[in-house]
């Protein structure tokens, strides 16, 4: 009896010591989307490198594949954690977590309510506040009186982006007046286009903002945001400009390369760090279900750097979507845009980043229309 227990215990130990592995299920965008999925893959690569974990990647051809993909992985019983990338997998993870209560799951950027699922969210309101600082100071220094934000569908998570951005703008304008002893103010325009996949609508919204004198526009609308970039670049080029202002700001991944010269920075959702954290917790035995908000202090969000764009390009070149020549041209453009942004903007962005990380500045959160409206008034 005792011997039996010992053998079982030994077996269990050797199994857990021998095979540490994680599986990543991508959403329908798949590898090579230069966004969400590729960011998640980067996290897996880092875990493989630093933790020696075997990573199995599974792509989904359609949304109907999520559930069977997750089930097939769970049935093998050989993965310490199974990770779903993106909120589209929410329903499937919710279901499969109930069917396999002993299997650990993690969901990026979504919310699944089960004890064996770690739902990782990203403090996009904090990241958006940093974008607000850069937008505000750049606009003020170049003599603009307006900045804008173009969003997708009016849902709670996007309200969070908008109010975070406004909070950053408000802080930056106050700080600017303090430094220069002035009494300037900025008008903030916002538009909910009602779509995440309609560049034409994003373009129309951005064109209207530019016509009203916006100097910087933050695009938070998935593919709709591509229209924002296009509008800003066209508007500037029509005036013979090689570099902004006007500027656009990217979102989710390092999008600065999309309109080189006109996107100085993007608000990155660090899905890579989320994936890495989930794997690390699973293999180190500290995994617990529940919600984890990856804040600015935890590197859950960040302002994109030149290196981030380079890393993205390597993925794009590997996927055959970009050439090294395109990379060099894009990097030159990004450098031009970054150089055109006043140093004060970068300095104040770093200052607010420290304040948020240390907890001295708390970015307000709005998750319903009423709260959002309250903050719109407050942050004038």
């Amino acid at each position, binding site marked *: 009896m005792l011997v039996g227990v010992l053998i079982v215990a030994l077996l269990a130990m050797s199994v857990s010591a021998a095979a540490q592995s994680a*599986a990543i299920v991508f959403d*329908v965008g*798949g*590898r090579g989307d230069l966004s969400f999925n590729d960011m998640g893959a980067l996290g897996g690569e880092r875990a493989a490198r630093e933790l020696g974990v075997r990573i*199995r*990647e*599974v*792509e989904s*051809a*359609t*949304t*109907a*594949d999520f*559930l*069977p*993909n997750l*089930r*097939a*992985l769970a*049935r*093998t019983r050989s993965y310490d954690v199974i990770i779903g990338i993106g*909120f*589209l997998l*929410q*329903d*499937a993870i*919710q*279901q499969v977590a109930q*069917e396999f209560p002993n299997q650990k799951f993690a969901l990026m950027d979504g919310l699944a309510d089960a004890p064996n699922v770690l739902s990782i969210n990203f403090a996009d309101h904090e990241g958006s506040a940093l974008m607000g600082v850069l937008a505000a100071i750049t606009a003020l220094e170049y003599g603009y009186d307006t900045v804008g934000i173009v969003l*997708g*569908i009016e*849902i*709670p998570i996007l309200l969070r982006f908008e109010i975070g951005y406004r909070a950053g703008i408000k802080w930056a304008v106050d700080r600017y007046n303090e430094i220069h002893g002035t009494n300037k103010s900025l008008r903030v325009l916002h538009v909910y286009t*009602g*779509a*995440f*996949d309609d560049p034409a609508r994003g373009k129309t919204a951005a064109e209207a903002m530019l016509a009203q004198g916006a100097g910087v526009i933050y695009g938070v609308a998935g593919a709709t945001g591509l229209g924002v970039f296009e509008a800003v670049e066209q508007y500037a080029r029509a005036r013979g400009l090689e570099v902004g202002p006007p500027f656009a700001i990217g979102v989710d991944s390092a999008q600065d390369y999309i309109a080189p010269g006109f996107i100085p920075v993007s608000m990155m959702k660090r899905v890579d760090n989320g994936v890495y954290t989930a794997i690390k917790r699973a293999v180190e035995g500290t995994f617990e279900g529940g919600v984890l908000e990856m804040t600015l202090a935890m590197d859950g969000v960040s302002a994109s750097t030149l290196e981030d764009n380079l890393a993205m390009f390597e993925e794009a070149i590997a996927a055959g979507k970009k050439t090294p020549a395109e990379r060099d041209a894009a990097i030159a453009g990004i450098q031009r845009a970054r150089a055109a942004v006043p140093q004060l903007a970068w300095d104040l962005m770093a200052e607010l980043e420290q304040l948020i990380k240390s907890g001295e500045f708390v970015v307000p959160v709005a998750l319903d229309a009423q709260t959002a409206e309250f903050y719109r008034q407050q942050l004038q």
Partner: protein
Amino acid sequence: MRRSPASSNAPARSRTEMRQKVRTALGSLLQVVLAAGVGLAIGAIMMNATGYDWKEALQALWLGSFGDLWGFADTLAEATPLILTGLTFALSFRAGYFNIGAQGQMIIGALVAVAIGSSLAAPKPIGMIVVILAAAAAGALWAMPASLLRVTRGVHEVITTIMFNWIATYLARYLVFNVLNDPRSAERTVRVLPEVRMGTIIAGADATWALFVSVFIALFFYWLLWHSPWGFEMRIAGLNREALRYAGGSPTWGVHMTFLLAGVAAGVAGATQIIGRPPTFALYGDLSNLGQLGFDGIAVALVGRNHPIGIIFAAIFFGALSTGARTMQIMAGVPLDLIRVVHGVVIMAMAAPETWSILRRYIASRVPARASAAAASRAER
């Protein structure tokens, strides 16, 4: 005219006919198996050339799709909508039309399934039946403009059905995000009520009772085409419209009937993806749970020789390919893009014989002297 050809057969003739039928069926089967083998072999060579273990990959393909009960059930779940969209193409083709509107008709069926399924709190079987009937009617209605334009204005159905596919796509996107959307989950529509959701056949796999709806419709189409006077008329129209007119049949009536029934199949296909596919029971904003099922149906129909029974087996084969795709990724580590290339090769090899016979028939129809001979050999099948 409105009399089934079978009813006039003497027993002796029927026996030779039977033997003939079995022979052609076995011949087709052999062709299909050979084509599949060629396709898989080319796929294996490609995987080998790109540095993946082809043996492991093919083994994974088999184990994942037929290896256990769950895998087989998932295969059937994938096959369910393909049977229907395959029928859409096949039925029209038998009547002489290239109806490639299954995609649009399926989208409309799915939209109607969401709209009715999310608001109709009827007791269990009634709600489901209402949703399926409504989706069928919606698919049929969406197919009507194509046949009306064909009959009244002579507009080719390829043009109209393609256009209506796009109209359906954009209409669906608008409705999903602006009318049927779930306010807490922007990526999809509201879910249909639990009362109208179809139950799974075995726990832990995706196949639901929707499978039986698909198979039932396939069997009905089989009966319709080969054992009913209406089907006989349709097939004659497909072979030679002049002959039908001469014999007193109405080609106009046949066109409308064909398009309506094809639309019914596609509409129900859309419904099966909403009320018969766990776990979401809603339509995604990018329509990604419908994918390209309408167009995949064309390939299914070609592999299944445009025959309802053949289509059931072809759809199961296609389902096995997509179910096997996940085990090929998990067990053999082959990336999805390469798997799709392999699938493409297999499907092309399998669709080749039917595509060739269609082409041959088309060429023959251009040469009047040979037309009647080709039509006669065609009628035997």
